[in-house]
């Protein structure tokens, strides 16, 4: 059981297919790493299955089955799916992240304290990044005008709301400021989905915020 699970309504929106791609990726990674979340989503998928079984049958054209059968000749029954191959350097990446990784992707140092890989996920309302923090280092103090979802993928971090380790999920604290610091051990790697650009509140904020807004950092 994760000490910081995703809210149940977010799991429901995920199982129902109602989340935008970026938050859906954050939830998928949480589910991949947390057995309790996995069981919860299994149950919700089963609810979807039960509802579809009970769904009133819409009438189909008589030709619908014939058309589908005619197409089967062109469609091979594929062998059982095998898990995707892990890319070197990304051994910590759970399966749902793999389709978003490209060969040659590398960490980019930001502000000398942490590294980032910006991910290209459809939908422009969100910014999706992998962040890597060295032990003992933190992100500059900031706040979130919109939602922020964080999933810890390696190591751990601590902020005023608690200690987060692999699989833990955090929903951005809204107007609250926070300053996560990476725990000792392996560097902390997390996926961060931010609804709108974050606002830096520390002494450097007024100089750096314009760059944040333009997506430069």
């Amino acid at each position: 059981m994760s000490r910081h699970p995703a809210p149940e309504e977010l799991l429901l929106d995920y199982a129902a297919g109602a989340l935008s791609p970026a938050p859906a990726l954050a939830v998928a990674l949480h589910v991949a790493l947390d057995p309790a979340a996995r069981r919860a989503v299994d149950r919700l998928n089963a609810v979807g299955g039960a509802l579809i079984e009970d769904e009133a049958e819409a009438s189909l054209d008589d030709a619908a089955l014939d058309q589908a059968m005619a197409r089967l000749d062109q469609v091979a029954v594929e062998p059982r799916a095998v898990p995707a191959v892990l890319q070197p350097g990304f051994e910590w990446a759970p399966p749902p992240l793999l389709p978003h990784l490209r060969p040659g992707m590398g960490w980019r140092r930001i502000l000398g304290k942490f590294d980032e890989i910006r991910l290209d996920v459809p939908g422009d309302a969100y910014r999706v990044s992998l962040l890597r923090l060295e032990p003992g280092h933190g992100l500059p103090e900031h706040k979130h005008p919109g939602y922020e979802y964080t999933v810890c993928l390696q190591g751990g971090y601590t902020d005023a709301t608690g200690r987060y380790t692999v699989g833990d999920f955090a929903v951005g604290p809204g107007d609250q400021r926070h300053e996560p610091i990476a725990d000792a051990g392996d560097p902390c790697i997390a996926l961060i989905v931010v609804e709108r650009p974050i606002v830096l509140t520390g002494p450097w904020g007024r100089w750096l915020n314009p760059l944040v807004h333009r997506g430069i950092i």
Partner: protein
Amino acid sequence: MLSADEAADLIEAIASRQDRAAFASLFRHFAPRVKGFIMRGGTDAEAAQEVAQEALIMVWRKAASFDRSRASAATWIYTIARNKRIDLLRRGQRPIDTEDWLLVHAPESEDADKSILAGQTYTKVKELLTGLSTDQLVVIQKAFFEDKTHTVIADELKLPLGTVKSRIRLALGRLREALEKDET
């Protein structure tokens, strides 16, 4: 009618011997339901029928990845139809993985003793749904079938967001409690 076991047998028949008759039986049972499901989201009948056909053809293609110990046939087909619906709404964008990795690849080690239950979850959930109040069932149906987030459901039912959230939480809580009692 098609029982859960019969439906699983049909998918396995496709996987092991490309059984076209099995496909036809599955299609007759599930395609009209998938079509109804897609139409609830506001898609017109013709487009919904196409999606239903594509979903069932995907069932054919991916039959070998179906694992009855992880999910019932209806649950697995639900995830395929749901992902097809997501693609439909995002037409022109990169299609999402049709494979729900959770039902195919999720590691089983830590849940080994629960793998048999995974298949039973569906039957149990089906029973429990019939025990929900109409209020609770409506919000759950809307959440699953009309692709609506909580905020939109609240708008539509003219209910405060908190009420929708608590109805959903209550409904899910009842399901969870009943299922967890079985798991321990």
